[in-house]
């Protein structure tokens, strides 16, 4: 996609204060690029669902603006909403509705004429081909979720919101879900998913936005985000245990394991000088013999915990 092109979703200064006085979103700015997969990552209660619901027209914002495909979600709500498909977090289903009918209903609600060929193809793609005549109540939880995806795609939207798509989902459906997401991406559909599983964001997204306490505290390409916040750890295994870290090694603030067999050095991967060369020289002159070296990169999980923690510090001050 052309990086200079207009974002397909533009959120500006979005705020939401619920009737009970709770502020779920404060001053959120967000640009979503056409065709990308964006993961909104944040703990429970961070405001992910509120943000999505506001863009989809389910929650009325208290401040700010949202445009979808250039259409204001209030002034041109029809144009804006026509572009969006939503798979909600909760498994909301009409228990007595027949699968094919409920998917047809979705298409109609979004203003499109009935198209049984498309619906049949869609249900087939979601492995629901043999379930078209079943009523919702008869389906397993995973199947119900597939139907919800079919409903969200019934009007061939250009944007798909998946609110915690893998919460309580088995491995097979998870795999299928990612296959579907890949297929949709190939078709040029923009996908926004929320999750509190870091691996999920890492696995599937192009960009990751981290949201905590109603604010987006970081958003970047997944790789950049990793390296921006990513710290690597160099673990040095010693041939002979040491009782304490030699004074000459103090500048490196090494951590010594309790058995004295390992020293851990943390460094910033982005820094021009990681300090590894001088550390190795210093180890050598301190007379420590190395047995092995290994490095680990902190996952988004660690990054995330760090960010939320520092955000909390900020709030306390």
């Amino acid at each position, binding site marked *: 996609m052309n990086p200079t092109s207009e974002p397909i979703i533009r959120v500006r200064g979005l705020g939401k204060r*619920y*009737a009970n006085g709770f502020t779920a979103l404060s001053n959120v700015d967000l640009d979503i690029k056409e065709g990308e997969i964006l993961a909104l990552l944040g703990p429970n209660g961070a405001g992910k669902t509120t943000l999505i619901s506001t863009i*989809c*027209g*389910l*929650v*009325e914002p208290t401040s700010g603006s949202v445009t979808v495909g250039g259409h204001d979600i209030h002034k041109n*709500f*029809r*144009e*804006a*909403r*026509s572009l*969006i498909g*939503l798979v*909600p977090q*909760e498994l*909301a*289903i*009409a*228990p*007595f*509705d027949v699968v094919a*009918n409920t998917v*047809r*209903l*979705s*298409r*109609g*609600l*979004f*203003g*499109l*004429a009935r198209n049984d060929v498309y619906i049949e193809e869609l249900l087939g793609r979601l492995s629901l081909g043999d379930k078209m005549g079943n009523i919702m109540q008869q389906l397993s939880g995973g199947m119900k979720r597939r139907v919800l995806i079919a*409903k969200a795609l019934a009007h061939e939207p250009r944007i798909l919101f998946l609110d915690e798509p893998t919460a309580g989902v088995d491995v097979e459906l998870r795999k299928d879900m990612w296959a579907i997401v890949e297929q949709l991406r190939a078709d040029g559909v923009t996908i926004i998913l929320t999750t509190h599983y870091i691996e999920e964001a890492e696995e599937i997204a192009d960009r990751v936005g981290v949201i905590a306490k109603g604010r987006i505290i970081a958003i970047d390409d997944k790789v950049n985000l990793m390296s921006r916040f990513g710290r690597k750890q160099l673990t040095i295994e010693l041939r002979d245990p040491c009782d304490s870290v030699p004074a000459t090694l103090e500048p490196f603030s090494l951590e010594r394991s309790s058995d004295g067999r390992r020293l851990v050095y943390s460094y910033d991967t982005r820094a021009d000088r990681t300090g590894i060369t001088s550390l190795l020289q210093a180890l050598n002159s301190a007379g420590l013999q190395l047995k092995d070296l290994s490095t680990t990169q902190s996952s988004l999980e660690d990054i995330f915990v760090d960010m939320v923690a520092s955000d909390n510090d900020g709030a306390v001050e």
Partner: protein
Amino acid sequence: MNVEGIKAIYFNEMRRTRNTLLQSIVSPVLSTALYFVVFGGAIGSRIQSVEGVDYGLFIVPGLMMLSLLTQSISNASFGIFFPKFTGTIYEVMSAPMSFFEVIVGYVGAAATKSLIIGTIILITAAFFVDLRIAHPVWMVAFLVLTCIAFSLFGFIIGLWADNFEKLQLIPLIVITPLVFLGGSFYSIDMLPEFWQKVTLFNPVVYLISGFRWSFFEVADVPVGLSLAMIAGFLVLCLGIVWWMFKTGYKLRS
């Protein structure tokens, strides 16, 4: 205007009716027949006629109104309450539909269902009594207006109710007494004078009176007043719905 959307809601609601055909259609037929046996047969054998109309015939409009009101309210209130209850309402709320279009779909379906039930009752009645309708056009007009007004009212109740008790509350403690005391089975002339006055505060009296006039040209209150009352009620419901739309009442947080 999202016509496909209105159609989608309307036909989905009508399909629900088809799926519960037995309770939707058989039960009004059965209860109407029972009313005829009990009121027309047992009481009618003593009362003979009211204002020159054979008693069995006299109760037909009241019987129809009784069913229309309760059915309109229960169908429309349940129609919007259920998706709120299951959570599926999210889809309607995120669709490119105006609140007006949503109402046309739900209320239109509920009113249609009531109309069908009204017609079935009328046909059932024809088996028991020698039916005659003096002003068929007015009869249909009263029928349609009543179905729409009370389906709208039901829609409001369904939006307002946040549990099953509340959903039942208004129909049970307000509507049923009003209908039974609204002259379904008697002319208000038959009441003691004091109660005749009290009864005039019951809006259902105007409804049944006007409807009965369209059948037999006998009425408790002037027919113009009946029409004004039902129009007024319709406007009131529309006003409430408009306010709900403005505030996103119970649908948008």
